[in-house]
C-alpha cells in the first residue's frame, strides 16, 4: 500500500478493502466489526428480534441529480444497508458538515427530501449533528446517517447458508445511479434520460421476507440465503464479496446482467463496465434454487420489482470466484474492482 490516500481507495474495490482492514479493522478489533456486513448485528433485544446498526456517509456531487439528491440518498442508502441484512429500519441519525457560504434554502430542500423519504419509509430521524467548516472544505455539504433496525429471528441470513444450486437475483438493471450522476456532473458533455435508482428497498424486500417466513413455517426450508447492496464497485464488488474465501463461486449467465439501453450506450462510449457501476436501489439476493422462481414472481408483482431477474447461480467450482459465461460459451473472470473506473483513451 502507498503512503497517502488516493481516489482509488474510495472506489469500493480491493484497495479500499485493504485499507479498511489494515487501518480500521486492525485498530478497532472486535468480532462484530470483523463480519464487515452491510449492517452490524448487535444481538437479540427480545426472543424474536435482533438489533442491527449501520452507518454511511454521503459525499455525492452534484447534490441534486435526476432521480434524487444527497438527502434522499442519505436516508435510502442507510435504510438499504439495514434491509439487505434482513432488518426492518426504524430509526436514523443525521450528521451534517456544511461549508461556509452554502445556501440555507438548499440545505432546507435537502432536509425536506430526507423528511419525505423517512416518512414514506416509516422511520424517524431522532438525533443529529451540525458542523460548519470553511469554504472549500466540504464540497457544499457532507451527510452521515446511522441507522437502527430490527430483524426477525426466523430470518437467518449468512454466507455460510449459501450452497451450489442457489440462484442469484437482481431487482432491476444496474448502473442507473452512477450514470445519472456522471451525466449530471457534465464532465463528458453527454445528455441522457437516465435517472438514479435511489430508493428504499425495504417495501420490496419485505415481501420476500414474508414469503421466506411462510415457507420456513410450512416446510422448514429457507428461501433467502444472503443479500448485498451493490453500491460503490457495483454488482462485481457485491458478488466477489459474497464468494470471497468461501467454498463456492458464482456464475453469471451470458448476457445475464440487466442493463438499460441508455446506460449501456454511455458505457460503450466511455469504456465503462456496467458490472462495476454504483447502484442505490438494488439488492443482489442469493436465493434457494427450489424457491427462486416463486420469489422472483413475488418481486415482479410488487410495483418496484417489475424488472427483477435471475441473472446467475452459485456453483461449486471455481470456488471464491465470479465467472461470466461469454457469448462463445467460455467462462471469464469478473474480478473485484481494483480501484475507481477510468474511461479508456481510444
Amino acid at each position, binding site marked *: 500500500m502507498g503512503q497517502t490516500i488516493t481516489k482509488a481507495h474510495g472506489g469500493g474495490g480491493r484497495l479500499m478493502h485493504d485499507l479498511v482492514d489494515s487501518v480500521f479493522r486492525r485498530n478497532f478489533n472486535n468480532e462484530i466489526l470483523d463480519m464487515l456486513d452491510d449492517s452490524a448485528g448487535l444481538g437479540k433485544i427480545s426472543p424474536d428480534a435482533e438489533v442491527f446498526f449501520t452507518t454511511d456517509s454521503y459525499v455525492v456531487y452534484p447534490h441534486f441529480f435526476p432521480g434524487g439528491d444527497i438527502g434522499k440518498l442519505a436516508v435510502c442508502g442507510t435504510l438499504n444497508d439495514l434491509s439487505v441484512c434482513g432488518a426492518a429500519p426504524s430509526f436514523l441519525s443525521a450528521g451534517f458538515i456544511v461549508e461556509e457560504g452554502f445556501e440555507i434554502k438548499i440545505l432546507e430542500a435537502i432536509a425536506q427530501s430526507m423528511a419525505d423519504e423517512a416518512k414514506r419509509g416509516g422511520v424517524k430521524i431522532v438525533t443529529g449533528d451540525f458542523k460548519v467548516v470553511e469554504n472549500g472544505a466540504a464540497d457544499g455539504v457532507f451527510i452521515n446517517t446511522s441507522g437502527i433496525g430490527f430483524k426477525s429471528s426466523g430470518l437467518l441470513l449468512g454466507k455460510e447458508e449459501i450452497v451450489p444450486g442457489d440462484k442469484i437475483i437482481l431487482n432491476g438493471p444496474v448502473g442507473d445511479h452512477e450514470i445519472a450522476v456522471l451525466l449530471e456532473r457534465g464532465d463528458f458533455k453527454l445528455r441522457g434520460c437516465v435517472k438514479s435508482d435511489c430508493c428504499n428497498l425495504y417495501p420490496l424486500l419485505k415481501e420476500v421476507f414474508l414469503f421466506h417466513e411462510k415457507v420456513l413455517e410450512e416446510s422448514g426450508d429457507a428461501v433467502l440465503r444472503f443479500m448485498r447492496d451493490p453500491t460503490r464497485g457495483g454488482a462485481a464488488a457485491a458478488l466477489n464479496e459474497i464468494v470471497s474465501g468461501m467454498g463456492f463461486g458464482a456464475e453469471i449467465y451470458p448476457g445475464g446482467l440487466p442493463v438499460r439501453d441508455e446506460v449501456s450506450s454511455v458505457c460503450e462510449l466511455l469504456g465503462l463496465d456496467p458490472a462495476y457501476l454504483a447502484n442505490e436501489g438494488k439488492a443482489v439476493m442469493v436465493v434457494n434454487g427450489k424457491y427462486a422462481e416463486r420469489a422472483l414472481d413475488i418481486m415482479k408483482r410488487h410495483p418496484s420489482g417489475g424488472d427483477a431477474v435471475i441473472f446467475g447461480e452459485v456453483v461449486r467450482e471455481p470456488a471464491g470466484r465470479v465467472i461470466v459465461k461469454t457469448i462463445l460459451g467460455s467462462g471469464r*473472470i469478473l474480478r473485484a474492482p481494483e480501484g475507481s473506473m477510468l*474511461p479508456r483513451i481510444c
Partner: protein
Amino acid sequence: MKYIDEYRNPVSVKKMLGAVFDAASGMPGPVRIMEVCGTHTTAAAKMGLRDRLPPSIELLSGPGCPVCVSPASFISHAVRCAENTGVIVATFGDMMRVPSCGTSLEKQKGKGADIRVVYSPTDALSLAEENRKKKVVFLGVGFETTAHAVAACVEEASIRGIENFSVLCGHKTMPRAMEALLKDPEAKISGFICPGHVSAVIGADPYNFIPEKYKLPCVIAGFEPADILQAVFMLCRQIASGKPVVEVQYSRAVRREGNQKAVAAMYRVFEPADSVWRGMGKIPLSGLKFRGEFSRFDAAGLFSLDAVSDEEPEGCLCGEILKGKALPRECRLFGRECTPSNPEGACMVSSEGACAANFLYGRE
C-alpha cells in the same frame, strides 16, 4: 444498439466460429495471428476467444496499447510539468495510474498537483481558453486514432491565439512498429489483425508492405465478437489460398483510402520521428514530433525536462510479451507483485494491456 447488438448476436457469432473452424482446416499448418490494438486485446479476452479457437490458431497480443508502450520517461516528464505552479496537466484517464520512478499522475494529484482527466483534446483546449493565466499541458498519447485530433486542436489553438495551450507529444504510429516485429526472426507471426480505428484514419495502404515484402496477410477488424471472428476467418482463408493481401473487415467504419483530411491535419502539425516504445526500445520513425512552425505548442520546449532512465523492473517480461514471444502467465511478477492496482510493467498498466486483460478476464 445499432451497429453493436447485431455483431453480438449469439446465433451469428456461433455461425462465424463454425466458419473459422472450416477455414482453419484448409490451412497448411498451425498459425500465430497477432492483433496490435489494445481494444482488440480486451475484446478478445472479454469474449473468451482464445479458449474457443481451433487448436491450430494461436492468438497473440502485440504492442497495441498506447498507454502501455509510453516509456517511463514520458510519465516522469508529465509529472515534472505538473510540479510547476500555474500549470494544469490534462490527460486521458488511463494515464493516471501509470507508474514511474515511484509515483504516478494519480499520486501527484493526491498531493495537490492540478491534473485533470479529459475525454477529448478539445476539452484540454477549452481548459486553456478558460484559464488564460495558466499553462495547460495536454498529454498527447495514442496512435493515429488520437494524433490527428490532437493536431487539429493545435491548429485551432494557433488560429484562435490560445498560446497557453501545449502538448507533451508521446504519439506513436503503428506500421513501423509492426515492421519492427516482423524483422525479429523469433516473432513467427503468420498474419495481423489490424487496428480498426487507427485504420479508419490511415486506411489500408500503409499495411501493404506486409503482404508485399513479408508475404503475410492482414485484415482490418472491428471490435465486436462477430467482427473479430470474421477477421480470423478472413486471415485463415488468405493463409489457405497463399495469396496475402490487406483486407478490410470493418467496412462500416474503414475505407481503403482512410480519412485523408485527418491524415493531412496530422502531418501539418507533426512529422515522423524516432520513438522509444516501452518494452521494445527505439523504433525508427515510429512516433511523431512537432514541426517547426508549431513548436511553440510543444510542451517539451516549454519546461526543462531532464533525461530519465527507461529501465524496466527486474523480472518484468513486458518486452517479450509485447512482441508476442511470451504470455503474461509466464512472467513471475504476473498477479503477484504486478497487478492492475500495483502495476510494475507496461502491460499491466492500462486496462487494455495484455497482462491487465489477462488478469481481469482470463481463466486461472
